[in-house]
């Protein structure tokens, strides 16, 4: 097969970091009026002549059904709202329909929500990534709701023979202001359906101060199904006659199948078929491996254990974390390629009062969503039907079509709830595998990755190394800053990039950023808050180091870097930054006396259009002897307790307070889990961790208290909250560790430096 082609990874990374447009986003941000043809597409037959089973839970009569756009469907029995984007735990299946309901003036209790079909001409881009569901859809969904509301008012005006201006709406009713007479939307649906959909300019949106629903605590629309254990997730798919499959790939990516004991496997209990697939040369679609199809998941997994494959590893990964670390240790002393340069770093550094040099590093980590990758596929008469928990259903259709050698219009995809995403399900390799396997199977087949598959074949958050050099002048101000970044290149493309200068790039006088790439074979890609999730640790810690060198309060120096309130590039505003920093510090009681061994640490980061500051309160125990880390170095063992994390967020107005608070708490826990002990290492091209016994996530007893604060939004638009709270947590905790015990932590996970959480 030769060398792997990694095309496609960097496009998605760039798209979710806001640097480029993703396929799924084409045609976004407009509300499409439905004509008869589109209506039929939505209600019945679509793509390849396959019936889409998304249909409403109750029967809707075609007549008397009011459906002015793809988001709303009202008839006598109720109000149905369509959630357009994948639900991965970020809450959009609830928050996006809330926006529609607000402008529609529907009572939330009257509303039922279902997942929409995939239809670019009706919905534009449908994906979950980059915390963009809210910012991209806020206006269009308001427009959709307001359009329907306007039509309801017109219908009532007609029935009553009065002027529309004399009518208002509330709780799914049109109300005659003078008399108090009411008509329900359900009652008016048939008449509203006869009206022309008004032009955008003839529809008035609410003044946000009149919002009734947005900003409240609304519980998730799937909550009841979830606690009843109903089938919701991709992996819960059950179809008549369905078979179960597993797929085994070379542990070193790029390896191909030389031979395998396939005949033996075929004889195992419950095994229906076993066969090797060649792969198509793309690291993003179908990699070579052996598929086993069985009557049950267990029989397939059991057979996989007995599978013996001889791999041709000529072109396979030789990735080694040890070698990479050693190489980085050498490269940190050499100049890298300059990617940003403002002022004169060398002169400022040389003439400064004091200088600080530090070498920071972080390991690879895995997405490890709780639901391992899976996809159900059925290939029949040249058409493919997919049941897929994916973050990018639009891309999935194109990729699956390519793998099967059919046109995309012969592929239909049902988007199903995802048991976690974190960026993993932006990539559709599991969909491609299921599609290719389905071509060999009569009837539907569910491909289930084991946890081991999921860890070994993640698209990892890459590790990295930063040689940081900085200086402070005689007034104690930061005078020079150099960030020498040693990252990885996969398929010739850097997995992460500092070419925008990275905070505090635009804020300080003499700044230089350099970058060098080490060659790597395993796929690396977007992972919750890409780039920010590691850069924040490095720069947020180093600002503190410089403040300490200047003998000044960290908070004061941090605020000083932002200067006068002003907009910066990329949407950051220094005034909003300073605001959240002050708020977090004030709420956390910055500056108060703390007992010996306890400290407060602060950090700020701007990412995904969110301005977030966090203060961590941490205790560090005495040294309890030594322990060996993953490298085999002996390090001091010390206990860390994170008591409380105070988070101040400015993400514009909050859509769903319950969901927003949940995202903040979850991001803190996820970030703490990741910085404490999560590490993926590679040797001989293979990942060294198998499962959750060697990849240890945080558990309940280590969870800190989280205090969540949102600033008054002012005129700002709402932005996403799935990612931006993650980045500032690690530097806040590490700065607190320094305050508590004087030890500067320079490695993530911090267990590498002997810290454990309790």
């Amino acid at each position, binding site marked *: 097969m030769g060398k792997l082609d990694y095309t496609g990874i960097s496009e998605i990374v760039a798209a979710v970091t806001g640097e480029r447009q993703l396929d799924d986003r084409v045609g976004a941000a407009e509300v499409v009026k439905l004509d008869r043809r589109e209506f039929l597409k939505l209600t019945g037959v679509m793509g390849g002549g396959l019936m889409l089973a998304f249909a409403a839970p109750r029967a809707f009569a075609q007549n008397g059904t009011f459906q002015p756009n793809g988001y709303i469907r009202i008839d006598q029995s109720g109000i149905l709202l369509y959630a357009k984007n994948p639900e991965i735990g970020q809450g959009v299946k609830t928050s996006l329909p809330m926006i529609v309901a607000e402008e529609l003036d529907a009572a939330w209790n009257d509303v039922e929500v279902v997942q929409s079909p995939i239809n670019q001409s009706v919905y534009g881009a449908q994906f979950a990534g980059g915390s963009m569901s809210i910012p991209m859809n806020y206006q269009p969904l308001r427009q959709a709701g307001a359009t329907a509301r306007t039509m309801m008012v017109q219908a009532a005006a007609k029935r009553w023979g009065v002027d529309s201006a004399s009518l208002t709406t509330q709780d799914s009713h049109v109300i005659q202001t003078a008399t108090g007479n009411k008509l329900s939307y359900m009652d008016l649906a048939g008449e509203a359906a006869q009206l022309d959909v008004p032009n955008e300019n003839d529809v008035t949106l609410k003044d946000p101060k009149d919002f009734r629903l947005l900003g409240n605590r609304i519980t998730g629309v799937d909550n009841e199904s979830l606690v009843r*254990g109903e089938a919701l997730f991709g*992996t819960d798919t059950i179809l008549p006659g369905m078979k179960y499959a597993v797929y085994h790939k070379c542990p070193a990516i790029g390896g191909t199948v030389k031979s395998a004991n396939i005949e033996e496997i075929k004889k195992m209990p419950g095994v229906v078929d076993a066969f090797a697939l060649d792969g198509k040369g793309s690291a993003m679609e179908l990699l070579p491996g052996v598929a086993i199809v069985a009557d049950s998941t267990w029989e397939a997994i059991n057979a996989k254990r007995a599978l013996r494959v001889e791999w041709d590893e000529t072109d396979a990964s030789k990735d080694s974390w040890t070698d990479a670390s050693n190489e980085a240790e050498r490269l940190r002393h050499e100049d890298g390629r300059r990617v940003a340069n403002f002022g004169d770093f060398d002169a400022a550094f040389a003439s400064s009062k004091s200088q600080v040099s530090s070498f920071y590093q972080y390991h690879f980590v895995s997405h490890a969503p709780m639901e391992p990758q899976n996809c159900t596929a059925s290939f029949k008469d040249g058409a493919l039907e997919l049941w897929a928990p994916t973050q990018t259903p639009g891309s999935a259709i194109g990729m699956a079509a390519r793998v099967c050698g059919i046109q995309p219009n012969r592929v239909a995809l049902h988007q199903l709830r995802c048991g976690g995403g974190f960026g993993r399900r932006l990539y559709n390799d599991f969909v491609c595998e299921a599609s290719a396997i389905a071509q060999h199977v009569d009837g539907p087949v569910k491909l289930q990755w084991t946890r081991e598959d999921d860890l070994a074949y993640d698209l990892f958050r890459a590790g990295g190394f930063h040689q940081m050099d900085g200086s402070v002048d005689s007034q104690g101000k930061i005078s020079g800053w150099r960030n020498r970044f040693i990252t990885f290149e996969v398929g010739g493309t850097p997995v992460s990039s500092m070419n925008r200068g990275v905070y505090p790039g635009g804020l300080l006088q003499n700044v230089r950023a350099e970058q060098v790439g080490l060659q790597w074979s395993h796929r690396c890609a977007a992972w919750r808050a890409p780039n920010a999730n590691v850069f924040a640790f490095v720069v947020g810690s180093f600002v503190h180091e410089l403040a300490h060198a200047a003998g000044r309060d960290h908070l004061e120096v941090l605020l000083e870097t932002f200067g006068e309130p002003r907009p910066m590039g990329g949407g950051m505003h220094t005034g909003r930054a300073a605001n959240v920093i002050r708020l977090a510090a004030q709420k956390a009681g910055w500056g108060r006396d703390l007992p010996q061994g306890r400290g407060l640490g602060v950090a700020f980061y701007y990412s995904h259009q969110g301005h977030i500051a966090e203060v961590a309160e941490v205790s560090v125990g005495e040294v309890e002897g030594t322990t060996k880390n993953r490298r085999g170095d002996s390090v001091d063992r010390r206990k860390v307790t994170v008591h409380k994390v105070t988070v101040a967020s400015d993400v514009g107005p909050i859509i769903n307070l319950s969901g927003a608070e949940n995202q903040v708490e979850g991001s803190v826990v996820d970030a703490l889990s990741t910085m404490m002990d999560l590490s993926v290492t590679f040797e001989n091209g293979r990942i060294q961790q198998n499962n959750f016994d060697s990849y240890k*996530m945080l558990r309940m007893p280590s969870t800190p208290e989280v205090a969540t604060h949102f600033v008054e939004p002012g005129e700002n638009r709402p932005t996403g909250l799935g990612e931006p709270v993650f980045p500032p947590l690690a530097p806040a905790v590490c700065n607190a560790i320094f305050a508590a015990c004087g030890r500067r932590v320079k490695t993530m996970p911090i267990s590498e430096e002997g810290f454990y959480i309790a």
Partner: protein
Amino acid sequence: MNLRVNGVTHDLGGIDPQTPLLWVLRDHLNLVGTKYGCGISQCGACTVLLDGEAMKSCLYPVSAVGSAEVTTIEGLAGRNGELNSLQKAWVELDVAQCGYCQSGQIMAAEALLRSNPNPSDSDIDEAMESNLCRCGTYIRIKNAVKVAAKRNSVDEIGG
């Protein structure tokens, strides 16, 4: 082989007795509320009750169940479909993010409350430590357990 799940006896025919209970539930009985997360007893996504006690079903051979009563997430609600106190608390406190771990979390909490109706914070920590939540909803899980426990005790006193 017979298996009692949520009050119903199922005939499993000639199933491989080594099949883990998890896959019997999911693939043979179509009870997909119980989840696969790791398969090695590390994450708790597959937690069910075996005669009222929490058990990770992913490594538990179906033959070992014997005559014990298996309760899964699908069997928690009352006969009329009414949610039990934990399920209600989970809905009202909006615990779930992705929701994938939550069946297992609720079953672990159910086992805790059956043996210890008024758990302290550290009792809850200890009982729930076996269940991972990748989305980090531990704070709400803990609160929901407390709310359910409190309501149960009020109901008992009142009722």
